[in-house]
């Protein structure tokens, strides 16, 4: 058997290769730091494969080009970074309302406003709860290494089609710009044929239309209920990574690049005999509320949960919701451009440990 190719790749390159592995056909985007490797690489790779690359005049145009392409059933995506994503938010609402399987990548940078080009996780709220008007959800996947970025991006196209719902890859500047080995594995990405719904010219069938305007109150209610039901079925896509035992005393919950720093700190402390654990949500929506609650319920000792984030405490709120007051949840905010070292996290974790009892002998 032929060995899969291994390359040293940036996270953003891994995202491109993942999209290409899923046979993404169209890319539309507008330049913004720190994700420009995505359009640049796409502009070389897509035309070679018979795909479409187009640099749009703005993020507004880019996301609506995606809308048009998705409406024809083509696999289409865009990518941007925080301020650019904000510009797309109105159209996110339309994409969800029209049930179009778009894939959107956000390589987060500092905000608010123009912020900075340093890494950040400041768009957690936006991605999981508030990326546009009305009741709708994106399925949000948060990779924490290049291999996962590759595989989740490819999977994003499958999930988008499965649910006919937009999927967001939420990355950040660290993940985007760091390089690590990436195995370009052949992936099995299921296709959901768009023939049953896409706009392809009404040949041999009645014409179809997509709309989000329902002036009839009952129609609008039904449309919302239908979407709500879909979001409920999306719950089965929950993914996470956990290292936790029943006698864990301190649990660190983190996502994306912050999870890597946390993992390093936790591994070191565990090797030294501390009863500490690690939990990383991979799907930020749907969020693994139930699993977190179970961890808290099963804990033999009162559990303290630390939530380090490269923002001022956003996922922290979901963790609090999950544990329903049954554990102390502490936010560790690291606003953009200050990235903690694992040593800093270790200090914070140790503060939460019972000094006399928490070390296994």
């Amino acid at each position: 058997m032929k060995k899969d190719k291994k390359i040293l790749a940036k996270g953003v390159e891994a995202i491109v290769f993942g999209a290409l592995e899923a046979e993404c056909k169209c890319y539309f985007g507008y330049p913004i730091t720190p994700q420009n490797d995505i359009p640049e690489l796409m502009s070389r790779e897509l035309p070679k494969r018979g795909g479409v690359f187009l640099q749009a005049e703005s993020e507004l145009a880019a996301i609506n080009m995606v809308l048009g392409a998705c409406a024809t059933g083509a696999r289409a995506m865009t990518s941007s970074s925080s301020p650019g994503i904000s510009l797309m938010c109105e159209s996110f609402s339309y994409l969800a309302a029209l049930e179009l399987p778009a894939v959107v990548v956000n390589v987060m940078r500092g905000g608010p406003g123009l912020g900075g080009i340093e890494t950040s996780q400041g768009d957690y709220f936006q991605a999981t709860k508030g990326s546009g008007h009305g009741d709708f959800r994106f399925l949000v996947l948060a990779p924490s290494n290049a291999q996962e970025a590759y595989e989740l991006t490819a999977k994003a196209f499958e999930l988008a089609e499965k649910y006919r719902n937009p999927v967001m890859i939420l990355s950040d500047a660290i993940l985007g710009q760091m390089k690590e080995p990436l195995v370009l594995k052949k992936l099995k990405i299921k296709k959901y044929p768009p023939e049953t719904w896409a706009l392809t010219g009404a040949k041999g069938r009645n014409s179809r239309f997509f709309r989000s305007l329902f002036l009839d109150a009952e129609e609008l209610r039904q449309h919302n209920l239908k979407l709500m039901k879909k979001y409920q079925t999306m719950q089965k896509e929950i993914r996470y990574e956990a290292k936790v035992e029943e006698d864990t005393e301190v649990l660190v919950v983190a996502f994306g690049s912050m999870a890597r720093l946390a993992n390093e700190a936790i591994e070191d402390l565990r090797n030294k005999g501390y009863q500490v654990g690690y939990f990383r949500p991979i799907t930020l929506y749907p969020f693994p509320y139930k699993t977190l609650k179970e961890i808290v319920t099963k804990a033999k000792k009162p559990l303290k949960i630390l939530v380090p984030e490269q923002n001022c405490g956003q996922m922290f709120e979901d963790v609090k919701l999950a544990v329903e007051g049954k554990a102390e949840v502490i936010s560790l905010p690291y606003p953009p451009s200050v990235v903690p070292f694992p040593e800093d996290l270790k200090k914070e974790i140790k503060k939460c440990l019972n000094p006399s009892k928490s070390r296994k002998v």
Partner: protein
Amino acid sequence: MRLELIIAGFGGQGVLFTGNLIAQASMLADYHVTYLPVYGPEMRGGTCNCTVIISDNPIASPLVLNPSFLIILNLPSFLKFIPRLKNKGRAIINSDLVKPEEIDNIEALQKKYKLYFVPVNSLAESLGKQMLANICALGAFYKVSKIFSRQNFEEALKYMLGESKAHLIEPNLKAFELGSKYIEEHYQVR
């Protein structure tokens, strides 16, 4: 084996390229690696550094507070990163821009760390290619760290330069050899 390397210098000294090459060569030697660039908004002339971690085991954090190895290409980087070097850490230092005789506490530092002063600018100049100072430093790193083979390096270099810059392979290899030889001739490497 685990080595945490920070390479630092001026923008334009090839800091990021060096980091990339080391990461690429170490990957070819079958190690886990991460490479993380940190740089200012300036495209040229600003300060610049990157972190490369090379390990037998999967690497969680791509960031390190206290590296075990430094490649220092200018004085500001020396002043910034030497205090962060782990006890008994090693450093390759561009002695054309950081002169040992001008460092106040050099004896104390040499007790704590293993410092390799290599005049990489002069070495590169002897080839008539000042821009290859970084590769001279890389040659020195190769000799001191013994992470990857010369063949790994050559393969990484060819991959990084690609066909359009294939003519640069020979001079790069020469610079690499010079750096490596300098270590051999001036230091005892275990």
